[in-house]
């Protein structure tokens, strides 16, 4: 069971999951209610057929696996919006001089040469 971002926009109270092929609607409802305490009002499932027309380097047809998709409607007025997992990082626009860049690079290089501090100065190639 994995929550996924819907390909087409879903209503606010609907969450989309990819579940194992053997799970049923009742299983999904019980799973969410008992393990995660999520109030579930309705579950609808469908099986997505994996495409079977890709070819590998030997020109054999390779199938993408089938998977089951579940659309879960939440109760008690709850809504779910799939979060943005990769937000854009802001670049701090402070002016940097060439010396700053050089010092920063030398520091990072020295850090790489020093090795793991937990080994207490013992080289990496030494193992018992």
């Amino acid at each position: 069971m994995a929550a996924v971002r819907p390909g087409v926009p879903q209503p606010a109270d609907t969450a989309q999951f990819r579940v194992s092929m053997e799970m049923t609607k009742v299983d999904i409802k019980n799973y969410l209610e008992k393990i995660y305490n999520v109030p579930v009002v309705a579950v609808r499932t469908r099986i997505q057929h994996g495409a079977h027309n890709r070819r590998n380097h030997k020109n054999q047809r390779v199938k993408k696996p089938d998977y089951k998709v579940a659309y879960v409607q939440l109760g008690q007025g709850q809504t779910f919006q799939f979060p943005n997992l990769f937000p854009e990082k802001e670049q701090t626009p402070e002016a940097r001089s060439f010396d700053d860049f050089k010092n920063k690079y030398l520091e990072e290089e020295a850090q790489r040469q020093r090795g793991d501090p937990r080994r207490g100065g013992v080289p990496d190639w030494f193992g018992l």
Partner: protein
Amino acid sequence: MAASRGWRLIRHGRCWLSQAEFSGAPGPPDSLYPPIVASATAKSKAAKRRRLEHFHQRVHEAASIEEKLRLYGLLQRPKYMVYPQTFAINADRWYQSFTKTVFVPGLPPRAAPEAARAPEPAAAAPEAAAGAAARVPGAAAPEAAAGAAARVPGAAAPEAAAEAAPDLDLGELRSLACDALLQESFYQNKKRPFLYRDQDHTPGPFLTQLISSLAALLCGRNPLLAASSLDLNPEVNYYWHHGEEVVVHGHRKGRVDPVRFQIDDHPHLQIRVPKQLPEVVPLESDLGDVPVIDHKPSKLPLFKKQYENKVFIGSKVADPCCYGHTQFHLIPDKLKRQRFLEANLEDQIEVTYRANGIASLFAWTAAQAMYQGFWNEADVTRPFVSQAVVTDGKYFALFCYQLNTLALTVETIQNNPRKNICWGTDSEPLYDVVEDGDVKGFNDEILLQLVQFLLNRPKEL
């Protein structure tokens, strides 16, 4: 020979595209040349618009209503099947957005003439009181506010209803209802109902018996009921377009199509009358907002199928009883109260009643309007009013619907400020329990509201 046969096949399927049909009006008499218009067969927007206008013109000029309905539903494409009795969550908001309906809780307010019919304590009545007093007393009707020059305050309305009650002999009505109930559930020796057939076992026959005997009793007070037609398990269908979508897959992929809907409803009982019910509020009134849902209808969930586009009120066009009065719907076993309570979905109980009322009444009133020749390019010039009672045998919910507009397609909805209005109550129990040949906790108000629904009639009668 094969070529001519193929040509005949193409002509038969798409014959309305032939150039001969498009040779329309000749140019002005002083011009030697035909008018310059867009092509009729090109793959261009102008040609598509011309074909659409030609189709609209054909429907406008149809010789009879049957021909108009036949042309309206000629082209079959996959459409959403809207079921009035549905288990879908929050279906009433979706149905309101499909039909451009405003939902107003409670029944429409009683107008001034009805309160004026009560004895002197009522406020100063307009001259309609003189005409109203000549009518049968106690016939309370939710009539138009159009004549309400002297607006009676709301406090007078319950007094009027209470004073109308003695004229109606509530005892007789109560005994009639209790008799029907006891006959079906206590006196008659019935076997156990088959699985999921509980509603056909007791509440169905009780409702039929109650309504037919009530209607027969009230015929004397309401001449419209005397001329009405009571249908048992009729069929009501309506087909309409609302909104636009892009075709997702298939040979028509990428084209912009209207979203098509079809309602196929089977009310338990239906009363059709030869004269239309009066309007409740003026045509252009705005009593609220229509919920806007910008998701595809398939998320409700709603499914598509392609079949006959039918528009039907319960009888054919030639029937004199072509207007609707009241529908009675029975909630099926799959949507019983107990099932919702077990699944912790108490708020969805009212949603099922509301969705049933809105969808069924929209289909019925819109089909009545189409029977009078209106359609989405020729919008209604007078509002169509109908009533409905949705029940599961014990709990009754009453609805009143006013259809103000049929123009729901993308082009016609843009400059259309009118909205359809649905008034509805929550479901209330008619009785508490039936045991030992006795009906306990009988609720007179529901019976009174039912009777007032049946007594509703136009102002002239």
